[in-house]
């Protein structure tokens, strides 16, 4: 299969913020000092809004970046989008993700399209952007209804030229930006804001008096311009803008820019100072978290720092695993029990009330901060704590990634050991029949005249048997090599299973030494199978059964028709497989932990091949123990249903009798 690639080029949707603070339009003539002060206040307010807007677009850009990374997977299966997608949408500024296939219909994959915008309209609205994105390979923004959408091209394979892009395009992934919240979230009461994309306004034009500021940021190759007008009549507004650059953190090199804009009125100088101190504390947490990969060391320090600075009664970092199970808790102050409310209230956190702030990373909740303030915390303080939560999330996620990497290294080392053992075993396995073959042929050559007719025949039988088992081993190795590069394939047709099985058992019996095969085969079982695969499966199961059987003990093969499947069993009277090993025997190189398995021949690849072949034919395989001892391997294969029973009430189409019957569910 060709690789899929999505248009994603570094910096293709980078924000190039050009803040034109103080770009006053229609400013009043400065009449007096008071007027001047009021006008400066309004200008600062408008500028704060443009800054907040730029920060929001940065958030949108990051979400779109993440969507672009997922685009090939989203496009490949729109009905089962990647699990992290909904989490991405809930984070920042993107309200819906849709797929427009190059030929087919549009489909909304996640989120909800704005009211009045149908999925089908996306294609028409975005026609120009779709073309640009397709030809350049880069995400490109366009206007859809009253919203902005960034379209991401997805290609079949890697593409280098415009011509190649046009032919290789399979679909576009569309991220619909939530303009209303983007603009509304940035503007304050009384302000008006007009947003345009590439010069086209997407918000209703509004006539407003006051002092204006504007900002232009780049999103998906298009300039987004926001013009904000703040009324001067409202009086002087004390503006404090705190922008924090919370440095580069950890191996992922994640850059977290936390911008906390204080635009509340009537804040005293003292409050601003406290605020600055708190934000500085948050900024200092970054380096603190970087000091060590040992969370047990850094998280308590962070907890103490935050709880001192924000006067917290209690503070805890709770980490959860991939399925929400608690993993670790680091706490300061009184230890709380029960569930704290997840914080949503807009007016801050009341004194003494315990709340939880989620720790989000890569689209999943990796834990939460649980805290209770001694005094009321303002929204700005809560924002600062959210910034801290982001930093803690990044740090713990990095640690998690590091630990996962370490686990992968350990797994690879284990696999390496297994492969070494495998090479030893396989050498032994190959040499045993080769030695027998060369030994007996040499004997025949050198001592032909000394040997009786009967002995010559016996030698030849032994040569034949050993070449058969050598051939089987080579087949296993080849199948295994195919399995390793995922090229092991089966081609099923309806076949009477009893004759396939009986024919093959007769062939393999000589290779089983002194173990006779007892068969009990139902004759009415027509299954969808690949005869070659059945041969490989039986060869492995029968030689295994013989290998583990006591001398002379028979191996039993049975076939019967189950509810929806053919059930083929191979049983032996060997020592049996320990219950805890039964699932693992199908793992490659795995040969069981018991002494018997360790010292018996076998490369540990046969059952891995069997499992793959049976699965490919739509069946399954399981191990069952026998009383008092022994093992039964149970293979279930799909029955070939007659076509008319599948089609049911519908009139049989012409030529239906020639159709390959539908495969029944295993």
């Amino acid at each position, binding site marked *: 299969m060709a690789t899929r690639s999505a248009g994603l080029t570094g910096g293709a949707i980078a924000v190039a913020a050009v803040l034109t603070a103080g770009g006053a339009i229609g400013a009043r003539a400065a009449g007096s000092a008071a007027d001047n002060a009021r006008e400066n206040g309004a200008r600062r307010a408008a500028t704060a809004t443009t800054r907040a807007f730029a920060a929001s677009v940065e958030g949108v850009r990051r979400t779109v970046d993440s969507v672009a990374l997922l685009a090939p997977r989203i496009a490949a299966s729109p009905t089962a989008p990647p699990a992290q997608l909904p989490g991405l949408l809930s984070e920042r500024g993107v309200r819906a993700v849709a797929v427009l296939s190059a030929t087919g219909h549009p489909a909304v994959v996640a989120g909800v399209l704005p009211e009045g915008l149908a999925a089908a309209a996306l294609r028409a609205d975005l026609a120009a952007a779709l073309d640009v994105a397709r030809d350049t390979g880069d995400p490109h923004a366009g206007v859809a209804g009253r919203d902005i959408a960034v379209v991401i091209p997805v290609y079949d394979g890697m593409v280098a030229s415009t011509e190649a892009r046009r032919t290789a395009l399979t679909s576009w992934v569309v991220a619909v930006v939530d303009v209303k919240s983007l603009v509304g979230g940035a503007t304050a009461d009384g302000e008006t804001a007009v947003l345009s994309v590439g010069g086209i306004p997407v918000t209703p034009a509004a006539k407003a008096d006051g002092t204006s500021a504007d900002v232009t940021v780049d999103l998906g190759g298009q300039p987004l311009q926001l013009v904000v007008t703040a009324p001067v009549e409202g009086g002087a507004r004390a503006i404090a803008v705190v922008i924090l650059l919370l440095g580069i953190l950890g191996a992922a090199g994640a850059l977290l820019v936390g911008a906390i804009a204080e635009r509340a009125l009537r804040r005293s100088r003292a409050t601003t100072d406290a605020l600055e101190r708190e934000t500085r504390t948050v900024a200092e947490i970054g380096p603190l978290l970087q000091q060590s990969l040992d969370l047990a060391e850094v998280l308590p320090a962070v907890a103490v720092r935050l709880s001192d600075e924000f006067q917290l009664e209690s503070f805890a970092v709770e980490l959860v695993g991939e399925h929400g199970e608690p993993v670790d808790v680091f706490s300061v102050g009184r230890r709380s029990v029960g569930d704290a409310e997840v914080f949503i209230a807009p007016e801050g956190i009341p004194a003494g009330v315990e709340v939880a702030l989620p720790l989000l990373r890569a689209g999943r909740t990796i834990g939460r901060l649980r805290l209770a303030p001694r005094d009321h915390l303002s929204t700005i303080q809560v924002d600062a704590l959210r910034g801290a939560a982001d930093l803690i999330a990044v740090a713990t996620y990095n640690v998690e990634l590091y630990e996962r990497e370490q686990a992968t290294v350990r797994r690879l080392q284990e696999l390496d050991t297994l492969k070494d053992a495998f090479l030893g075993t396989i050498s032994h396995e190959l*040499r045993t029949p080769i*030695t027998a073959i060369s*030994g007996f042929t*040499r004997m025949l050559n050198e001592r032909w005249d000394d040997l009786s007719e009967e002995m010559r025949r016996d030698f030849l039988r032994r040569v034949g*048997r050993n070449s058969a088992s050598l051939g089987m081993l080579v087949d296993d190795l080849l199948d295994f090599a195919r399995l390793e590069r995922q090229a092991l394939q089966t081609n099923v047709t309806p076949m009477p299973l009893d004759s396939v099985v009986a024919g093959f058992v007769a062939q393999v019996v000589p290779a089983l030494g002194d173990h006779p095969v007892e068969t009990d085969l139902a004759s009415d079982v027509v299954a969808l199978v690949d005869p070659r695969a059945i041969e490989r499966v039986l060869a492995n199961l029968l030689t295994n059964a013989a290998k583990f059987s006591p001398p002379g003990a028979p191996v039993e093969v049975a076939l019967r028709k189950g509810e929806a499947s053919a059930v083929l069993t191979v049983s032996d009277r060997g020592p049996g497989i320990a219950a805890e090993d039964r699932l693992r025997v199908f793992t490659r190189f795995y040969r069981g932990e018991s002494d018997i398995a360790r*010292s*018996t021949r076998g490369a540990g690849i046969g059952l891995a091949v069997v499992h793959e072949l049976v699965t490919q034919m739509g069946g399954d395989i399981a191990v069952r123990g026998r009383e008092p001892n022994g093992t039964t391997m149970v293979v279930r294969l799909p029955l070939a249903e007659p076509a008319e029973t599948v089609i049911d009430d519908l009139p049989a189409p012409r030529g239906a009798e020639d159709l390959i019957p539908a495969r029944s569910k295993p």
Partner: protein
Amino acid sequence: MTRALIVDDEEDMRFLVRTVIEAANNGLEVAGEAADGDAAIAYWRAERPEVVVLDHRMPGLSGLEVAERILAESPEQRIILFSAYLDPETTAEATRVGVDLCLAKSDYSRLPEALWRLAPPA
């Protein structure tokens, strides 16, 4: 006469070794055969053959485990480890245990020579 006990889980290999020894004749004789370690030890106790020809990879006791037990009872016993796959670790372990000689199965034709050398027929 130098009598050899053949220990191998593969009937073909036991038969091959027997044929090679019998063909060489000249003072060599097969004392008996065993298909696993426990049978080998029992047979050895009863018959005390001059040399034990031991396969390494077998169900149950491995060849070296069998050698260790026999040598614990009789340190003078002559033992040949006759294995399809002789890696340096196995050879080193065999030397440590006190096995006299390691012979790869592909060198089966040298087995009579090895037997003569270890236990010259009286």
